[in-house]
């Protein structure tokens, strides 16, 4: 049985590539903004393009169900979807999902913003998400803010003026600051690894 993965649709982000990428990884993705779909799925993907405050406002009706389901099933945050997992962000008002303690802050002034392009990972600890992926592999990043976790959740980092958590993991909750659905073959591999976790 293919695991059903709910891709949370809470605005206008480009969900097509995430959908196709998960499909290739062996999942049955569903793009949805319905509570019931999140409850019925084997895993949840929280994508994200845009601004923190708008995203949290749009996500508000699903906030409780996401927090509840994240305890029971695998969840993958992508890009802004990673940042939304944290407590709060410098980018805007409003509380994040607070599934991981920490703040999201703006990249330092001495680098070009947004951080846009392919950057290499440095793996800090093992993760099921990283099967077939090694330190030095490149992934596609586009972001202006980054997370500063207050918990030991960082699986891999990348370097851009500062050390940025590129992958975080806490219990069932996984997230990437880069876009696996835009990171070519290795990105597809990571999505496939997540589908594998969702199948367990």
């Amino acid at each position, binding site marked *: 049985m293919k695991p059903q993965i709910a891709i949370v649709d809470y605005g206008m982000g480009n969900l097509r590539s995430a959908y196709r990428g998960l499909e290739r990884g062996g999942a049955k993705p569903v793009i949805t903004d319905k509570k019931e779909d999140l409850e019925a799925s084997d895993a949840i993907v929280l994508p994200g393009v845009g601004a923190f405050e708008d995203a949290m406002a749009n996500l508000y009706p699903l906030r409780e169900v996401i927090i509840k389901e994240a305890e029971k099933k695998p969840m993958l945050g992508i890009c802004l979807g990673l940042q939304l997992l944290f407590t709060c962000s410098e980018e805007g008002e409003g509380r994040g999902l607070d599934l991981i303690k920490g703040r999201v802050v703006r990249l330092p002034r001495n680098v070009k913003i*947004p951080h846009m392009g*392919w950057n*290499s990972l440095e793996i800090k600890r093992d993760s099921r998400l990283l099967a077939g992926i090694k330190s030095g592999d490149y992934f596609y990043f586009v972001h202006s803010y980054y997370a500063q976790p207050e918990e030991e959740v960082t699986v891999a980092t990348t370097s851009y003026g500062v050390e940025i958590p590129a992958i975080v993991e806490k219990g069932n909750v996984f997230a990437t600051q880069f876009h696996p659905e835009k990171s070519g*073959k290795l990105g597809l591999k990571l999505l496939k690894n997540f589908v594998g976790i969702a199948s367990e």
Partner: protein
Amino acid sequence: MLTKRIIPCLDVKDGRVVKGVHFKNLRDAGSPVELARFYDEQGADELVFLDISASHEGRKTMIEVVKATADQVFIPLTVGGGISEVEDVRRILKAGADKTAINTAAVKNPELIAKAARRFGSQCIVAAIDAKRVYEEREDRYVVDTPEGRCWFEVYIYGGRKGTGKDAIAWAKEVEALGAGEILLTSMDADGTKMGFDIPLTRAVAEETSVPVIASGGAGKVEHFYDAFAHGKADAALAASVFHYGEYTVQDIKAYLKARGIEVRL
């Protein structure tokens, strides 16, 4: 480390790639999807589709092309050409593109950049600037030293057919302030010559702005890409014919760059 990006550009008209593409091993060299996949295999870091359709029907077809490409190619895709309102941006992003490049419409209505950036985020708004040298000293222009003499750079619109009198470097700063997340900078002097990118132009814009700059126009040899990065301070380099005619693969260029100490994704 963040790598320098190599970006093949495809001109698409009514859903087909134009500007003869010559590859023996492609079933259909006129198919944007097929070519996108081919360049992805070669290690292209991103792709740009430039819609040169003149008709409404052609533009509708482009949406289908973007969808089909996004379904099969998992690297960033920028679509430019004929974008004149926020609704065009929305349609293209929704079809699966990651960024839209806005050129003429931004000059005519700078607020479009601001509106689109506010709505969709700066990261998906690329300001495309076509610039041409004007060899004259003017106090109200950014005058730059070049091996050919001192000049300023004039912004052209309508696919390079109409000069605007605007200073390209000042315009680059303006689009950044409006919210563009990246600048696609094409030298009209260099475009089509295969004599190399306009390095003084690229460098001036890269130094005067703080968003990523894509150098475009004039690529003919591997050395030209090195110059764009090492001397022009570009973040990415875009080319068309040098790839389409099979003179170099993306991989050839990256191998050369890496050997000369430029960080690339191999």
